[in-house]
């Protein structure tokens, strides 16, 4: 943003919420239910509500019952009651059914598209008088004179790649409010800045994450059993990598197929996208999908640190809720109910106290936290491998988390081993036939769109490292962990990409090429880069994936 910018236009609200996901929209709805005269705005970077939302998703309905009594008579467009749970362990060729863990008993829960659910929540918030602004990205924080958060700065639009104003240039406005609620979801870029600025994580473990990849398929009618929920662990991951798959059977012959892989994996050559594709080609899964077609696809990071990694949730002028805070229950593989509950709790706290002060204590005192406390040791238990993790999970489940111990979380980026230190294990991955062929073919189903002539929103803080140390030490893992093929190492002379035979007279150099227009806003690079030199910032509002029913 240019220094000479003229004074920005300002809009004032009582509460500004960043992010129209389940947490932000529930918070907005609750605020207006409790105090209809409150001026509430929700800012959302996606062009349409729900277009950047990607989740499984099986949800617990209790918080929705509380927020919108009667919602079951007017359910979201995709909402199938769970009929049957299945949990299995996969080897490269076989499948063994296991007892479903109690946390994954989904009786009474619903399979939804979280994107469609948000699209369904938004007009209900608008009917209550909430102003929702999709297509506008909160690019920066507005600080008041005393250093507290005083609102957000909307990103400028119509800025060229070189940072110059195009004909369509439009300066972003500032939205001021006594209270800003950050509901950006996992690894929100403003939340990240504020956690650092106010040292909100001073007393918590490092945060830990996973990457989730998902495809929505339309399959042959005989392969879809609406209400069936399938999960698996094991292959195609090795025993030191935490993760697993999901297949949720929706209505209209649709299957939500996905794979989640913890980002504390050690292998610098590991490819999460390929793991997902391998899973789909497992002999027990492939027949389900054969003859079908992909409707939509994408990826999103998940926040898995739980209680130990939960930062302080309040700072002067602002609160963190939902996955921006990190409230997901990992053993349940669910965060939506926690997001909705935290949004509602923030709303009632704010209305009661006329202020966000004390929200951190209120949330830690609530059943949201009690739920996280009970399962706090299960995810870190898997840091010692699959089998010891399962044993820890059994112990912690039987004792309901009452043992006087809390296992530690570690930072994902520091878990990656150098090439020289990692001994590759054979994962028995084979050739595969189902689409998509590769990551570019997959991005096509995300319908992601960025104006190419805008500043690159993936900032490399020390680009020299990419072509020197990283090549040697890790072989540029960004070219593999990114599910959208954003990062590519190319050889050229200067800026021109040189084709075969074009290298005459000059020195060929390796260079990191960032195809930022492919980005699906999953945030994996910001998390997993071993040098922590990739900084994800928001591109022009309205850019990014256009997910349908993910």
């Amino acid at each position: 943003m240019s220094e000479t910018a003229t004074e920005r236009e300002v809009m004032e609200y009582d509460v500004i919420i960043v992010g129209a996901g389940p947490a932000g929209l529930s918070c907005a709805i609750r605020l207006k239910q409790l105090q209809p005269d409150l001026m509430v705005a929700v800012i959302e970077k996606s062009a349409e509500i729900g277009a950047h939302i990607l989740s499984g998703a099986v949800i617990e309905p209790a918080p929705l019952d509380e927020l919108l009594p009667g919602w079951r008579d007017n359910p979201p467009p995709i909402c199938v009651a769970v009929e049957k749970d299945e949990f299995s362990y996969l080897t490269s060729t076989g499948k063994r059914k296991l007892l479903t863990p109690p946390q994954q008993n989904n009786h009474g829960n619903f399979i939804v598209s979280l994107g469609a659910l948000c699209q369904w929540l938004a007009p209900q918030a608008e009917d209550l008088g909430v102003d929702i602004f999709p297509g506008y990205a909160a690019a920066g924080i507005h600080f008041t004179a005393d250093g507290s958060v005083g609102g957000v700065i909307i990103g400028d639009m119509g800025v060229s790649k070189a940072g110059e104003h195009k004909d369509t240039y439009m300066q972003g406005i500032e939205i001021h409010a006594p209270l800003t609620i950050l509901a950006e979801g996992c690894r929100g870029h403003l939340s990240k800045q504020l956690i650092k600025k106010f040292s909100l994580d001073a007393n918590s473990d490092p945060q830990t994450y996973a990457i989730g990849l998902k495809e929505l398929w339309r399959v042959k009618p005989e392969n879809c059993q609406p209400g069936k929920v399938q999960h698996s662990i094991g292959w195609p991951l090795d025993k030191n990598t935490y993760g697993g798959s999901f297949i949720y059977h929706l209505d209209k012959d649709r299957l939500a197929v996905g794979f989640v892989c913890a980002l504390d994996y050690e292998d610098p050559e590991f490819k999460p996208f390929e793991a997902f594709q391998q899973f789909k080609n497992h002999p027990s899964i492939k027949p389900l999908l054969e003859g079908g077609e992909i409707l939509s696809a994408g990826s999103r990071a998940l926040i898995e640190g739980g209680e130990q990694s939960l930062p302080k949730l309040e700072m002067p002028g602002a609160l963190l809720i939902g996955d921006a805070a990190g409230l997901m229950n990992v053993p349940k593989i669910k965060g939506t109910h926690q997001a909705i509950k935290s949004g509602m709790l923030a709303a009632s706290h704010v209305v009661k106290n006329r202020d966000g002060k004390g929200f951190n204590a209120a949330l830690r005192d609530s059943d949201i936290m009690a739920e996280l406390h009970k399962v706090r040791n299960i995810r870190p238990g898997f840091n010692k491998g699959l089998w010891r993790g399962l044993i820890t999970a059994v112990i912690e489940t039987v004792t309901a988390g009452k043992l006087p111990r809390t296992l530690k979380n570690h930072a994902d980026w520091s878990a990656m081993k150098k090439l020289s230190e990692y001994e590759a294990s054979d994962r028995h991955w084979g050739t595969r036939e189902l689409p998509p062929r590769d990551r570019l073919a997959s991005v096509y189903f995300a319908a992601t769109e960025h104006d190419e002539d805008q500043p690159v929103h993936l900032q490399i803080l020390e680009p020299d490292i990419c072509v020197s140390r990283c090549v040697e030490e890790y072989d540029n893992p960004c070219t593999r962990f990114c599910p959208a093929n954003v990062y590519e190492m190319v050889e050229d002379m200067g800026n021109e990409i040189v084709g075969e035979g074009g290298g005459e007279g000059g020195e060929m150099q390796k260079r990191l090429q960032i195809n930022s227009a492919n980005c699906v806003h999953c945030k994996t690079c910001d998390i997993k880069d071993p040098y922590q030199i990739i900084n994800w910032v928001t591109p022009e509002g309205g850019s990014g994936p256009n997910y349908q029913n993910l």
Partner: protein
Amino acid sequence: MKILVGIKRVVDYNVRIRVKSDGSGIDTDGVKMSINPFDEIALEEALRIREAGNAEEVIVVSLGGNECQQQLRTGLAMGADRAIQIDTDEPLQPLAIAGAFLKIVEKEQPGLVILGKQAIDGDNSQTGQMLAALWDRPQATFASELVLNGETATVTREVDAGLETIEVDLPAVITVDLRLNVPRFVKLPDIMKAKRKPLDVIALSDLGVTTDNQLKTNSYAPPPVRQKGIMVEDAAQLVAELKTRGLV
């Protein structure tokens, strides 16, 4: 002078179009909908004309159910002064749409009607031409440049052979092409202002327009899927493979 601009709600250009499995139409379930991009260019041009002091009012018109109010509100947020929704749930064809526009034209008496050259869903490119004929006024289609000179307009048209410049008497119907302008971004406070701008709803049935369709659609089908290719080792194998397929 008033300018009338047509706005159509269409499936967004970024969305991958999918045909319903029974072939009865396009799947729009959960699909992002937007203003037809050519209509956005038409509106941008109208706003620039008004901002240059050559028009007093810009009116956006759309035919459709209440869902098309979303696109009309976007038009108002871009800067249109008021909006008219011709309320109908019927899927209409260009002649009926042109007939409905004519009724609005007769009532509003605009000096200029600016439309997109076509909508990206039906790709008909007929409504503007039909409206000009029904209205018995000049038309200038596929405009890439538009200059107003009082009683006339000079329009540069994108035609197969290159560019063609014509002059038309006003009032006239102008349909616009991609290169005419780049539409503006909507300013966030203008979204709030747009909520207070007038949006009139007129039932299509009250306009007295025949809505009989001239065309019947039998079925929709996606284009055939590209067959999987093979990698050849050298030119000789390429020739051999082409020969076995009878292609050379």
